[in-house]
């Protein structure tokens, strides 16, 4: 398996053996070395062997070793001959990021930051097995699964404008609750409005630097303003849905006489009954995740209001955008000068639609889609915008975050004898967390430097950096 460098930001593995297409990696000299050591590229080559894959199996600069598909991977499939893969979407279906900006400045909230962080930590359930204040009946949960963000706003969680600034307006319309298992319903019923554990977080930040003033202005971001960044997904509901279909599809692989290099790549033809059913169930999980983030933002707004004692108008909290980075979607893309409807899998990758794309809301028609890239809790997060180059090369996709560099075990070892809370405080970040090892496992050095990641996507032309956010407080599970 030879990795050939094409230019400073592109590498390729030529099509050999069972590969149906080549593999293409977007990265930089700095980032690519760390990935060479493990199984990541082998996984990408495995993806390139799946039936109906188009153009190339692609990796974004934050790629890392996952299971089945690598994390940070993009793959498009032909709708007639291609497959849909639960492993190609990931367990946390519609894991995603939501960004809101306020009218408040750092100086205004600094004296209240400890209180505000504590208020958020109290209001928002975090950690393993946490449950929310909502306990839904089966019938009500089915409404959530069909309607997504709209359900939340109709119940008073948030503003209609939030929906307008959400990818797909917070609802995949093909969702069908009848495609979902009872086990998934059981797990989902109590978890709406919860953050979860692992790398999920709510972060208060400040716009530290504006790289593209014109676009930043349209996104409502100017230097010094306080932001709220949320990272979470479909919780146990999505995990169970992925698990159910992986299991079923693994068992039917022999029937469909599909030979796969890794069982975690289990998939079904898009047009098959199993493929259609998975898509409808996945859409339910996507809608669950959007509803979850909608409720969480609402609860964050209330916490801000209570802790700071200011009116909603003074705070002016408005949603910039909400994106998903674990998803499969049917989209139109031009391949060899022909426009086709294909199924794009983004596993740890973000949609990056360019200016004037018909799926963008009017507000962002001229800027391209806002792309939200969370970093680690000590350094930075970024807001980017989609470009025509992404549309031409990567099925309108870009990176999704910093990408892990250390295993959890290695991170815990490195954290031994250190006070990470103190280290973060010295960097100006207040942290509240639930899990015993959360802070160690999630420490900044466990991740690649997100700045290098966004430089690589900008360098290759698949996104444009708009603004840099600096974290000042974080709550984690």
């Amino acid at each position, binding site marked *: 398996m030879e990795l050939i460098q094409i230019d400073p930001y592109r590498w390729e593995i030529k099509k050999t053996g069972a590969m149906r297409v080549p593999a293409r990696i977007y990265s930089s000299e700095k980032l690519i070395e760390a990935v060479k050591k*493990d199984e990541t590229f082998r996984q990408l080559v495995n993806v390139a062997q799946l039936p109906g894959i188009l153009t190339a199996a692609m990796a974004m600069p934050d790629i*890392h*070793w*996952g*299971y*089945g598909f690598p*994390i940070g991977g993009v793959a498009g499939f032909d709708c007639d001959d291609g497959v849909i893969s639960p*492993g190609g979407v990931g*367990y*946390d279906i519609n894991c995603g990021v939501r960004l809101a900006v306020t009218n408040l400045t750092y100086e205004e909230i600094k004296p209240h930051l400890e209180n505000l962080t504590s208020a958020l930590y109290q209001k928002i359930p975090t*950690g*393993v*097995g946490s449950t929310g204040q909502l306990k839904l009946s089966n019938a009500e949960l089915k409404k959530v699964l069909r309607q997504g963000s709209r359900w939340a706003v109709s119940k008073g969680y948030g503003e209609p404008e939030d929906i307008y600034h959400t990818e797909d307006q917070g609802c995949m319309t093909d969702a069908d609750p009848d495609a979902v298992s009872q*086990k998934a319903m*059981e*797990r989902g019923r109590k978890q709406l409005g919860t953050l979860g*554990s*692992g790398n999920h977080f709510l972060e208060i930040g400040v716009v530290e630097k504006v790289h593209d003033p014109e676009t930043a202005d349209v996104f409502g971001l100017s230097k010094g303003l306080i932001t709220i960044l949320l990272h979470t997904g479909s919780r*146990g509901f999505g*995990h*169970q849905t*992925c*698990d159910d279909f*992986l*299991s079923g599809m*693994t*068992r039917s692989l*022999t029937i469909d006489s599909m030979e796969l290099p*890794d*069982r*975690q790549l*289990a998939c079904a033809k898009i047009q098959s009954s199993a493929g259609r059913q998975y898509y409808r169930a996945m859409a339910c999980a996507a809608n669950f995740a959007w509803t979850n983030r909608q409720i969480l933002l609402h609860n964050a707004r209330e916490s801000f209001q209570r802790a700071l004692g200011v009116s909603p108008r003074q705070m002016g909290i408005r949603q910039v955008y909400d994106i998903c980075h674990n998803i499969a979607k049917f989209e139109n893309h031009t391949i060899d000068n022909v426009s086709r409807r294909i199924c794009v899998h983004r596993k740890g990758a973000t949609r990056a639609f360019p200016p004037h794309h018909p799926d963008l809301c009017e507000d962002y028609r001229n800027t391209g889609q806002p792309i939200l890239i969370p970093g680690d809790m000590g350094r930075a997060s970024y807001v980017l915008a989609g470009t025509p180059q992404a549309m031409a090369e990567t099925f309108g996709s870009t990176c999704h975050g910093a990408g*892990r*560099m*250390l*295993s*959890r*075990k*290695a991170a815990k070892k490195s954290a031994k004898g250190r006070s990470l809370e103190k280290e973060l405080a010295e960097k100006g970040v207040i942290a509240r967390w639930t*899990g*015993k*090892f959360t802070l160690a*496992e999630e420490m900044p050095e466990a991740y690649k430097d997100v700045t290098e990641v966004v430089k690589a996507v900008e360098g290759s032309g698949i996104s444009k950096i708009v603004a840099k956010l600096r974290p000042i407080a974080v709550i984690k599970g």
Partner: protein
Amino acid sequence: MAPYELIDHTADLGIAVTAEDIYELFETAAHAMFEQIIDTGMLSGEKKTAITVTGIDQPDLMISWLRELLFFWNGRERLVKRVHIEQIKDTQITANIWHDPFDPARHEILSDIKAVTYHGLSVEQTEHEWRALIIFDV
């Protein structure tokens, strides 16, 4: 219980189990999984439940077995203290499970296992022993 090792995986967590027979292999894998979640010495195993799990082959049976047990935790908020396999016949397991309800005040969760993956999965019999390798989504 047979020995097991933790495997380092950038995003996830794995276990490698070695055992004298297939019963011990499946039981140890189950115990190893719950030992990542909680100090199982803290549990009393007050309730006993009988379960039956099937797979298409031995690796698939391992995944189905661990998934079913993990659902006790992430579906029903029950922590598994102990498992005893009554029978493994072809690709079907019949077992008894002893478990407690999760009490956040008493039970400290060490790490969350969110799913059992097929990635890198192996279950094999060598000349002298049985071996399994399983990677979890954490």
